[in-house]
């Protein structure tokens, strides 16, 4: 059986009712994913290719390379079906659930990207699907809500708390505690109880498997650094995994939100930088780094990007940070918005707001990133158009196009 911990992080802090399902999942993970029983892995890879569109390209970014005077490569997960890296995991888990004989899938979603990926995977595989989504996120990501419905999924609004990802995960766990016998919970990132963090990482590792081969083919060598935005950390771990044994610097770029300061009284951390500023604790099934107050109550996090708006982070990432193998950094909302516009204009790629964080870090720190830099383009920004209009109008964002015609929304 695989290890349930990464150093001091990880574990299985879940209600007893879920433990049998989690043991069943550990077993299925071992057999199907690690040992390719019944050809699961081959089936998965074929579907990722034909349904998902893998491999995604590693693109040399001409304008950014010129701007930063080094070679910048983009790993184009935005081209995956559904528009983000999320499908790698959603398809893997939904397929695994099918191999396990489960008929119903539940999942939480923040930006809606994991929800849409899961809904698509379930439609593709003929599984029932229900998605929990915070009410606030539902309002921030309406098109994704509609896409899930189009794919035949139910979308259940979660009204507790601030109505973002944290609450959606809690609510999905509650559903699972009721429905565990015929239902699989497709968690959306490298978080949750073991074996989720390990399994989701394995499904996402295809990003760095491809990228490593591609960068060697294109440059003859390994990159000096790899940048990926970190919410729960699945695109991060996916982009880093195959490089962890190399001499490549790995930067996990978190959402600095509006400030790194914390409002203990209000229970609000106006950022989502759990690796940079969080402390150890137990949330959603795992011991990891968290945004919490001194009592251990979880803070409401904030980011302009729904997909990074989470108070926790994957335990493996927390461990790699402690080990010094991954460097946690963060950029604020303004920087992310600026980078959103910069990438759109310079490279003709409209990134997700989540992804834009990685580019903001590139803009700020390129001098220290070496000759060859890979940025993981975790998703496309179509889902963010409405937010970008609003958020850009509220700020004075350098280089943004004139938003006047779009006042009042799309």
């Amino acid at each position, binding site marked *: 059986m695989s290890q349930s911990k990464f150093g001091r992080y990880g574990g*299985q802090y879940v209600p007893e009712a879920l*433990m*049998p399902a989690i043991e069943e999942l550990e077993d299925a993970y071992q057999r199907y994913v690690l040992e390719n029983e019944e050809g699961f892995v081959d089936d998965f890879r074929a579907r990722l290719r034909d349904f998902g569109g893998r491999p995604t390209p590693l693109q040399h970014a001409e304008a950014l390379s010129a701007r930063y005077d080094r070679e910048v490569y983009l790993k184009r997960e935005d081209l995956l079906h559904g528009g983000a890296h999320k499908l790698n995991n959603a398809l893997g888990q939904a397929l695994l659930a099918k191999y396990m004989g489960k008929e119903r899938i539940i999942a939480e979603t923040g930006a809606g990207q994991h929800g849409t990926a899961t809904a698509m995977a379930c439609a593709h595989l003929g599984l029932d699907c229900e998605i929990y989504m915070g009410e606030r996120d539902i309002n921030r990501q309406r098109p994704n809500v509609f896409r899930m419905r189009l794919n035949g999924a139910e979308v259940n609004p979660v009204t*507790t708390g601030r109505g973002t990802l944290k609450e959606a995960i809690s609510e999905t*766990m509650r559903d699972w505690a009721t429905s565990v016998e015929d239902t699989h919970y497709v968690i959306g990132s490298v978080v949750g109880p073991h074996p989720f963090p390990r399994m989701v990482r394995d499904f996402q590792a295809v990003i760095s498997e491809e990228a490593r081969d591609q960068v060697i083919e294109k440059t003859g060598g390994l990159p000096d650094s790899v940048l990926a935005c970190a919410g729960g950390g699945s695109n991060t771990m996916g982009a880093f995994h195959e490089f962890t044994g190399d001499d490549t610097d790995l930067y996990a770029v978190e959402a600095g939100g509006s400030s790194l300061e914390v409002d203990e009284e209000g229970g609000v951390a106006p950022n989502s930088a759990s690796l940079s500023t969080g402390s150890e604790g*137990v949330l959603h099934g795992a*011991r990891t780094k968290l945004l919490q107050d001194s009592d*251990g109550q979880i803070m409401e996090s904030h980011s302009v990007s729904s997909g990074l708006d989470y108070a926790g982070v994957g335990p493996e990432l927390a461990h790699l940070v402690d080990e010094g193998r991954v460097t946690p950094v963060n950029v604020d909302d303004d920087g992310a918005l600026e980078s959103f516009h910069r990438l759109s204009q310079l490279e003709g790629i409209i990134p997700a707001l989540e992804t834009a964080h990685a580019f903001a870090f590139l803009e700020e720190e390129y001098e220290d990133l070496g000759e060859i830099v890979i940025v993981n383009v975790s998703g496309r920004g179509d889902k963010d158009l409405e937010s970008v209009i609003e958020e850009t109008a509220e700020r004075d964002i350098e280089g943004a196009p004139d938003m006047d015609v779009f006042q009042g929304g799309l």
Partner: protein
Amino acid sequence: MSGSRIDEAFADGPAFIPYLAAGDPNIESTKEYVRALVRGGADIVELGLPFSEPIAEGSTIQNAIVRSLEGGMTPDAYFDLVEDLDIGVPVVCMTYYNLIYRYGEEEGPEPFVRRAAKVGIDGFVVPDLPAEEADPLREACDEYGLDLIFIVAPTTRGERLRRIMDRVSGYVYVQARLGTTGARTDVSDQTDTSLGRLDEWDVPKAVGFGISEREHAERIVTGGADGIIVGSALVDIVAEGDTDDGTVAERLERKARELKEGALAGGESRPQPERP
């Protein structure tokens, strides 16, 4: 695992174990409500220390937790509350692991348990702490002589069940059905099966999740339970506030009495279990 105050609470027939969220809606009310429950016949009181992410709770208790946190409840305030209670029946602290883990300056659960022991808490229920992760807390409980109650779910069987029953003390919390806490209008068929699975163990079995009526209590005890745990049905009364039917405290006491009577009636209709 013998002679704790909790063990004693099961000695004289089926136990009635009410749950309230501490600080819902404020500290003084909680004291008043707990005393009313004791007057109504509570043998043990489960007092919830609210955590911001209560993944095992249904909406009734979630809302109670929100009210409590908004009222300013903290672990320290909770300990003070318990210290002040002085009710003559054991108090079990029900909370989530992060609050236990984070408490105090030193690492791990020990500081929390130490303080709990000091203020007179008799045991813990930690819904997000399965047996696999419980060793540090189990050790601290042993050190301070507190019970650590585990939940067994309808899905818990075989090897897992054994692992839990090896570690449990005080009583085992038999989860009557899958899902989260919350008052229901029926008794789950799963309850009897679950109780059956526990026959070979001698620790008291208290059934919770969904019990709201006298009849439920009676049926469950008839089915072999040593106690019933009732939460959401009582939290509902707190949430309602005073009504024409009486104050919250009056209605809690009345409800407690009714449930306790149910449990007793159930106890009479079956052969008394042999107690050690």
